[in-house]
């Protein structure tokens, strides 16, 4: 049953070194504040899973939190490469990163299978691609009725899923809307779930058939307004496209990344302080 908690309490209680952790959010509602808190608390040896690693995993990987990554598209959307991810894969910096690569369709199906308590997913995937040779996790299965051959891939069952949502009520029921990605599946596939939200409300006032996660599938709910920035929260704030572009320069260079990490994350006590540092930076840029 969901407990309202501070983000630092929630991360301390539910995310442990070596855990398989999914921080999900498909472009929208990416739980950046939670990612920073995981870095702040120095988690290591994490197995990370996420469809689009995005900046959030670039930061976790660059900070040395991750030993393994399962993903399906590892770029900076609309900008280019994820340099910290590439540095880890290509040059083992700061620590080696083992990767399990899947297609979007595969990984989305794998979360569905996890949520449905199945050990594997069946899908039409990878036909003609080199992934079948490269990845031991892609196997084939035959339809017991038609004999047809299909792909089978292992389900994803995280120890902890972390998502950001628009609202939660006092009991901890969570409402999200707009681009939903795989968040519901990630939460239901996981043993534990931590949710950060924009707003705490008396009543969700949700429309019929809205995407709601009942309080009893969530372990901790944390009020973190702005906690998805630089991604966006539909109805609250837009995507900070400038930061995504700026990240290309910050992350391209190890030293510059380390300076950013220290100043923005390690030397800030929480997300509010992180936001202040970011605002200061923007003011300075504007004065240039």
């Amino acid at each position, binding site marked *: 049953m969901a407990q309202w908690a501070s983000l630092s309490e929630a991360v301390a209680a539910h995310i442990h070194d070596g855990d398989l952790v999914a921080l999900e959010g*498909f*472009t*929208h509602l990416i739980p950046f504040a939670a990612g920073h808190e995981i870095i702040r608390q120095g988690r290591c040896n994490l197995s990370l899973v996420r*469809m689009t690693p995005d900046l959030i995993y670039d930061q976790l990987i660059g900070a040395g939190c991750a030993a393994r990554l399962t*993903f*399906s*598209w*590892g*770029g900076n*959307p*609309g*900008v*280019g*490469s*994820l340099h910290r*991810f*590439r540095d880890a*894969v*290509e040059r083992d910096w700061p620590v080696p990163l083992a990767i399990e*690569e*899947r*297609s*979007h*369709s595969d990984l*989305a*199906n794998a*979360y*569905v299978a996890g949520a449905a308590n199945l050990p594997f997913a069946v*899908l*039409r*995937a*990878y*036909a*003609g*691609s*080199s*992934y079948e040779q*490269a990845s031991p996790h892609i196997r084939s299965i035959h339809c017991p009725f038609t004999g047809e*051959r299909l792909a089978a891939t292992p389900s994803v069952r995280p120890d902890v899923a972390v998502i950001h949502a628009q609202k939660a009520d006092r009991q901890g029921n969570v409402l999200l809307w*707009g*681009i*939903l*990605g*795989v968040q*519901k*599946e990630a939460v239901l596939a996981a043993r534990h779930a931590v949710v950060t939200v924009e707003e705490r409300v008396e009543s969700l006032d949700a429309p019929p058939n809205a*995407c709601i996660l009942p309080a009893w599938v969530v372990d901790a709910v944390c009020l973190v307004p702005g906690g998805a920035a630089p991604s*966006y929260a*539909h109805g609250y704030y*837009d*995507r900070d*496209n*400038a930061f*995504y*572009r700026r990240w290309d320069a910050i992350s391209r260079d190890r030293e510059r990344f380390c300076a950013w990490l220290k100043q923005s994350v390690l030397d800030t006590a929480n997300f509010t302080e992180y936001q202040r540092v970011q605002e200061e930076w923007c003011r300075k840029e504007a004065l240039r």
Partner: protein
Amino acid sequence: MTPGYTSDEIMTVSAARMLRNGAICFVGIGLPSTAANLARLLHAPDAVLIYESGPIGAKPSVLPLSIGDGNLAETADTVVSTPEIFRYWLQGGRVDVGFLGAAQLDRYANINTTVIGDYHRPKVRLPGAGGAPEISTAAKEVLIIVKQSRRSFVKQLDFITSAGFLTGGDARERAGIQGRGPVAVITDLCILRPDPESRELTVTTIHPGASREQIRLNTGWDIRFSPDCIETAPPAAQELEALRALQARTAAAHGVVEISS
């Protein structure tokens, strides 16, 4: 005389023309998204754009910078979960056209967006698969838009991320792939179509101002030209106007001029 348009513009306009009105189109971000939205603003107002993040029937007035921008959700007929997009809509066989970009492709329109070098010890780690392996097989047909160069048009791919015609001929069918595969590759120099027999990409129209020599210089293999090769119709004023207005609206909204893929 310099033409009144850039090579990027004729690429985008030519790609847009390929999308027929009413087509259900699964759209990759970047160049495909620009071309598909331009088509929607021109001759294909009823094309249905599906983005892998969940929007179905997105009608953005400015180009999305990411695959999951808010304006895609706001303008869509419906927004479903990402698993549903891949399970019910793409794999379900509801998509007419998959509109893809490519980091690298070969003469059989196979695409690599995964690695350069050895998979397990890559020289360059590219973003990976995304939705492409299944878009390229489940969509009834595929359009590819890519800037042509020796970096992108390579003789031998280190990795096939998404199947084109594999080793050519009927290799794609023999692999049991359902969709018909790439019907055209649109570049900043020309349009290529698969040869009906060998399925090797063959230049069928050359953009005004581009030469066969230039195309050869920007291709990593000994590229073939169709005996019926003609010149691409240049962008019409209306097409250029719509494209430039779209990019201007995008720049005003996002503060950027060009969307990279």
